[in-house]
């Protein structure tokens, strides 16, 4: 008897959830949705930004550069900024985008986690007159307001060209990538291999993954050195600073390695330059989000802007180090940066 009563209660509660709640929503007044092709007339705008990942310093700084730039640069035209976080989850990336649309944002800045996952939703948002700025990652569509990125393939090419030249086109090169299965990791690797394949005397080791994680990259490097003590160069898309630390801890002679633009790398470079540490910064600056912001706001305010913005891979040599290095600030900061010193300390100390 008790069982039956409880069963009836459950049925009622489930019914409330699956039937009554949607009905309540269905009866609620529809949210105002901007019509397609309608010019944006508000004086102040609502902005949405999805933080695609906070798993490493680069992705964290990408978001923080944006937050600071919009707060400082557009206080008079931005009503409110809504931030969501996808944490590298494809489904959440899509859900967050849809939530920002439902929230009534006038413009959404988004980094697609895969090239396809947002295409349909971005089409719908564009139909509703919402501006969409895609940045930091590729997308299989050209239906957006603006696109801002640095080619991962090109990053792979430039970093491999540096190594090939530094080792005179011959030798054994370790290949350490980011996270398996991500588009960026595949594109950079393909770009690098397109260069190394032109050098018959360069022998690339099988690709391994550092997961853009400092400790994992160190372990991977230690394993590689145990198996291949005669490595001549290291192509890495994951934590070069950690790799250099392995060389220092084991008192090994340095081999050419591309840096990514982390303050720790700059400090190590300056400290060990005389002891043979050779590198070149091949950068995908985290200030890219600020470029995306300015382009997006120009579009929103009816100012001229470029729709396609493939930024060049940033190359810095040792001659630039004094402009890049932040000697008294934390290691994990990406340089160059627009963030002020106190903000950098707050974030990274």
């Amino acid at each position, binding site marked *: 008897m008790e*069982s039956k009563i409880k*069963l009836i209660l459950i049925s009622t509660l489930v019914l409330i959830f699956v039937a009554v709640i949607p009905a309540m929503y269905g009866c609620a007044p529809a949210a105002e949705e901007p019509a397609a092709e309608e010019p944006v007339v508000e004086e102040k705008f609502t902005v949405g930004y999805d933080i695609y990942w906070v798993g490493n310093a680069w992705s964290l700084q990408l978001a923080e550069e944006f937050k600071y730039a919009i707060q400082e640069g557009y206080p008079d035209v931005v009503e409110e900024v809504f931030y969501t976080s996808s944490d590298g989850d494809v489904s959440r990336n899509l859900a967050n985008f849809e939530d920002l649309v439902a929230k009534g944002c006038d413009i959404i800045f988004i980094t697609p986690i895969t090239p*396809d996952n947002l295409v349909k939703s971005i089409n719908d948002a564009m139909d509703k007159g919402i501006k969409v700025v895609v940045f930091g990652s590729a997308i299989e569509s050209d239906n957006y307001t603006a696109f801002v990125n640095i080619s991962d393939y090109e990053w792979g090419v430039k970093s491999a060209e540096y190594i090939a030249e530094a080792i005179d086109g011959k030798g054994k090169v370790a290949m350490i990538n980011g996270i398996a299965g*991500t588009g960026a990791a595949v594109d950079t690797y393909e770009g690098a291999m397109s260069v190394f394949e032109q050098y018959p005397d360069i022998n690339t080791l099988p690709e391994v993954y550092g997961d853009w994680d400092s400790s994992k990259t160190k372990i991977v490097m230690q394993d590689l050195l145990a198996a291949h003590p005669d490595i001549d160069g290291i192509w890495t898309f994951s934590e070069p600073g950690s790799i250099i630390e392995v060389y220092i801890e084991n008192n090994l002679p340095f081999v050419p390695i591309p840096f990514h633009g982390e303050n720790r790398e700059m400090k190590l470079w300056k400290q060990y330059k005389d002891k043979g540490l050779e590198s070149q910064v091949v950068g995908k600056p985290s200030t890219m989000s600020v470029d995306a912001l300015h382009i997006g706001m120009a579009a929103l305010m009816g100012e001229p802007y470029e729709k396609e913005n493939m930024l060049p891979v940033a190359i810095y040599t040792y001659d630039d180090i004094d402009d890049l290095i932040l000697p008294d600030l934390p290691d994990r900061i990406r340089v160059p940066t627009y963030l002020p010193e106190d903000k950098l300390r707050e974030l990274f100390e």
Partner: protein
Amino acid sequence: MTSNSAISGLNLKKINSYSSVIYTYIFLIVVFIIFYIFFPVYRSPANISNLLIQIAPLAIVALSQAVVLVGGGVDLSVGAVISLTTIIAANLMGTSATGIILGLVLIFSIASLVGFINAVICNETHIPPLIVTLAMSYVVQGIVLWYRATPGGSVPRSLSNIIIYRFNVLSIPIIIVVIIYIVFAFIMSRSVFGLHTYAVGGNELYARMAGVNIKKIRIGNYIISTVLASVAGIVLASRIGSGAPLIGSPYTLDSLTAAIIGGMTFAGGEGFVIGALGGAAIIGMINNALNMSGVDPFYQYIFSGGLLILAMIINSFRRR
């Protein structure tokens, strides 16, 4: 213990299971009312439509996890099966009706095979299901990455248009969820298979003594789990229009959390599968509501985790 006394023990557990579902749904409704009152945007039809469609894949996988948990197991391979499904749907299905049907047959066959292997290893080796299914997830994920390391391919438009079709605030995925839950609520509470699953999860020894074919039940549970995971994969693939080799990863733990919030336990033999829907809805609703409320995403993790802990504490009090 005789078969009858084993069954009467099960009935007591069932009553307890009903209580857990009641607590889950009361919590869900309270959370909903709070968000409804305080965040006007949350009330918009556009948002409810998003919310329901966002919940659907997790609700389906949570059900698969619930069935296995009731049977005393756990399935950590569901995430990899979801990823595998999206890759097959986006790369091996033709655009013709025949191609789609063959693709679906292939997906369900492979999913069944994965579930079957999980169950056979658990049956024959007595290695804990946690380890078996974790190892299987590595195997399946490895195959997925070997076959296609990057997101891509294209789900046949005719299939995805049907799967993601929306009418007003409802959509096909929600209808799929409702139908699947009704079917499994019936199976688990009214059929011999369901009763035997509770018996195996509650006490394997007594179940064996009562004449339950444990191996058969376990094979059924794990096949159901992976097939349901593949259904969730089809919904996801249709949502994003392509395959993604890592898309399923977050669903492994989320589905487990949803099922536990919904009243299932690691001990097995307890819980009413309808609770998993409530668990999935709580997780989805919290994420959506926090986005709508404009809470800083970093605080969202804390808030979301706190609410989930609260939901589980309420459930644990109920068990005392």
